[in-house]
């Protein structure tokens, strides 16, 4: 890079929350036109650092200089004025407003300063969406009606609606499928070619290799490595910097199939369908078996899980546990029969943000700790502690409110809930979204161990290697129909991607 001052230089940034020092003297330099990747385990402080950069948090100490001049970012607006746009990890769109209104929120095109020019807003939104490769999103639609992937695109359009010089993306690829990720990378390429800098956060190391220029690694609120070359640093080195140890990024071994195949299926789905979401589906899961559903975002996978779980009412078909049919459309019946669901949208569908980790974890198993409605809090806390430890959730104190946990640790809290309940069939929807490399390997091991103990698992993931590595049997879905079923060891990533995109079993 040229020796001119970096576009952005943050130095000695510290930030404490009650009881936690999230950032402990972090330095970060970003050059114009580069993709600077920020890596670190869950809770390392990545999101906190970029919130400081976005003006959403005020640092306790430290300086920020922008194009060689010291600046104070008192508010998100101050950061935006400089040309810093941020796409947050937890989407921050207003569901009841339209796409165009969200994109222009806070800087609406107006006449005479206050009359919003709706048409102009819609037109410029349509143009941005076109640029982002998604002309099919209607700027007039309510954001709440869009899929998660499309909401991500809208966030991106919002960031680009400003005149940006630096754009920060906090795990933008977590909700995207491979196609969308390619599209995202094309956009990133266009931006950097135009001299815009990108700060990119992801737990997927292969993405860092594809688009990253330099890497800064955070660990426990400190930068343990700065400006490493993204393409040539060995993965093992990055991982050991992040975790402070060597992680074998491998999936746990599968048990011998004959034993599993001999068992009676615990979960049977017969002819289950919902109009417009997924075609009639049959599937069986045996105790000890992990069945994976592979498919693109929007191929009906989450809908299938939610229907099995009773959160949606099927149009046809039924769900049986141990051969006994469940009352359709009743979550309570499903839970009583031993089903558990770790849903895709943890914030909206799973977590009680104001409550402690303990209460979030115990909410589905309260009756286990209660006699005549009376809760034995000692037993509850002990069980929550054990579950938290098992998943190495951090901080390991289960009394802290879930709201203060980092994204990946919130995901672990959801899993801990069903670990604690000890259910018989576990439905996992994107279980490792936002979970760091080290914790991922632990999660896989936990899921496999539970399966070995007789749990039946139905797994949905956009990450094909995860489905192939963890599941015993894989169902490939395209547009709501199963196009292929095979044991996981007979498939590879390319084959699955082909099936998912074209749907024609090419052999």
């Amino acid at each position, binding site marked *: 890079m040229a020796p001119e001052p970096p576009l952005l230089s943050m130095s000695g940034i510290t930030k404490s929350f009650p009881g936690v020092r999230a950032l402990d003297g972090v330095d970060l330099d970003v050059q114009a036109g580069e993709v600077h990747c920020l890596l670190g385990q869950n809770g390392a402080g990545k999101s906190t650092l970029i919130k400081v950069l976005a003006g959403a948090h005020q640092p306790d100490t430290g300086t920020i200089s922008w194009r060689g001049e010291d600046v104070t970012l008192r508010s998100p607006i101050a950061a935006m004025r400089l040309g810093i746009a941020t796409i947050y990890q937890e989407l921050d769109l207003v569901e009841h407003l339209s796409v165009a209104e969200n994109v222009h929120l806070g800087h609406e095109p107006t006449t005479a300063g206050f009359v919003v020019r709706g048409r102009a807003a819609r037109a410029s939104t349509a143009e941005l969406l076109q640029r982002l490769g998604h002309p099919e999103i209607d700027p007039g639609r309510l954001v709440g009606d869009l899929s998660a992937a499309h909401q991500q695109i809208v966030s991106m359009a919002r960031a680009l609606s400003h005149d940006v010089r630096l754009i920060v993306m906090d795990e933008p690829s977590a909700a995207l499928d491979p196609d969308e990720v390619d599209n995202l990378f094309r956009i990133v390429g266009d931006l950097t070619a135009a001299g815009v800098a990108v700060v990119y956060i992801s737990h997927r190391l292969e993405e860092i290799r594809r688009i990253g220029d330099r890497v800064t690694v955070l660990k*426990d609120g400190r930068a343990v490595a700065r400006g490493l070359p993204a393409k040539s640093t060995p993965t093992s080195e990055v991982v050991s910097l992040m975790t402070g140890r060597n992680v074998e990024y491998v999936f746990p071994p599968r048990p011998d199939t004959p034993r599993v195949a001999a068992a009676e299926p615990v979960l049977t789905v017969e002819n289950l369908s919902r109009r417009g979401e997924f075609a009639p589906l049959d599937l069986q899961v045996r105790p000890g078996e992990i069945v994976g559903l592979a498919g693109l975002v929007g191929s009906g996978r989450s809908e299938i899980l939610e229907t099995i779980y009773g*959160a949606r009412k099927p149009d046809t078909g039924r769900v049986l546990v141990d051969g006994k049919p469940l009352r359709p459309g009743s979550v309570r019946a499903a839970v009583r029969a031993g089903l558990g669901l770790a849903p895709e949208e943890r914030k909206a569908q799973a977590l009680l943000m104001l409550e402690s980790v303990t209460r979030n974890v115990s*909410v589905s198993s309260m009756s286990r700790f209660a006699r005549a409605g009376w*809760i034995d809090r000692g037993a509850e806390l002990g069980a929550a502690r054990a579950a938290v430890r098992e998943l*190495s959730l*951090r901080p*390991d104190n289960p009394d802290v409110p879930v709201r203060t946990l980092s994204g990946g640790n919130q995901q672990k809290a959801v899993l801990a809930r069903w670990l604690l309940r000890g259910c018989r069939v576990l439905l996992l929807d994107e279980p490792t979204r936002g979970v760091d490399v080290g914790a991922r390997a632990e999660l896989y091991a936990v899921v496999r161990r539970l399966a070995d103990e007789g749990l039946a698992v139905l797994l949905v993931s956009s990450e094909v290697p995860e489905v192939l590595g963890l599941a015993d049997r894989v169902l490939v879905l395209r547009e709501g129909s199963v196009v292929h079923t095979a044991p996981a060891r007979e498939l590879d990533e390319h084959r699955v991607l082909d099936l998912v995109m074209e749907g024609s079993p090419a052999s």
Partner: protein
Amino acid sequence: MTQNVSPPRDSAPKVPSAGEQPAWRAVLFRADVRTLSLLGVLAVLILIGGLTKPDQFLDTRNLQLVLTQASVIGVVTVGMTFVIISGGIDLSVGAIVALASVWATTVATQEYGFAGILFTAVLVGLGCGLVNGVLIAYGGMVPFIATLAMLASARGLALQITDGRTQIVTVDSVLDLGERDAYVLGIPPLVLVFAAVTVVGWLVLNRTTFGRRSVAVGGNAEAARLAGIDVRRQRLYLYLLSGLCCGIAAFLLIVLAGSGQNTNGNLYELDAIAAAIIGGTLLTGGRGTIVGSVLGVLIFTTITNIFALNNLQTDVQQIAKGAIIVAAVLVQRRTASTT
């Protein structure tokens, strides 16, 4: 913080994570700040009362009166706190108190004596709560609208029953409860009922599955549903609970006034909501405490009393209450964000 090496995961699980103790203490401290600030306000009020009207305010009879008045609205507020914590609202509490108090004091009911009056009051409260609950939980009505409708109809029915007349209670055993002879160690029985409702309410909220479920429903209804909680049934129970509290309050009011009137419980809904809010209950649901609400009630009742002793008009009282609500919420926001 020094270099914090992440603990080896399999062994030594007891390595404390960064700042475990302080986080724990911060939570405790925050809870305390809220309660302490309310206690502080109450202490200041008592001081003001003692300074402005030393003989009258601190007189035992006056203090007994303040507590007795707080009891009626206090019982209503405990129920209201549960409803608000669960993300709902009950605008009909005052009207239910009125309806229950007149229904329980009709000539026909009074023939059944003490038990007749008590059971009628409680049953009418539960009945109204049931209607609210069914409309909201199973009819999909917005709590604001459903309970607003109940407010109008219950008041109307109360007027129809009494025809606007005061119904005097003739059952001696009921009236005796309000007499000085019935005081236990100087404490009026009504206050004991309020204390009991408070303790039970606290236990239910903090120590039972019912309380947990209420908080969960208020914090994130969709998450509660997917966690296997029957959200609709929980909502029904919560409005039943609020109705039950109104029934108990109506009975207390009958004892206190020695009569039933269709104008009873006027604006109780506002007082109860205000007390819960200054006590720290989030109007959006998901958080709240019984202790805070009860302190809120005591603060309001004390203000009313001090103003009455100083011959200040109700309009001044209302303005002062409004100011206190604003101040309390501002103070809480501060303490919540700085600790």
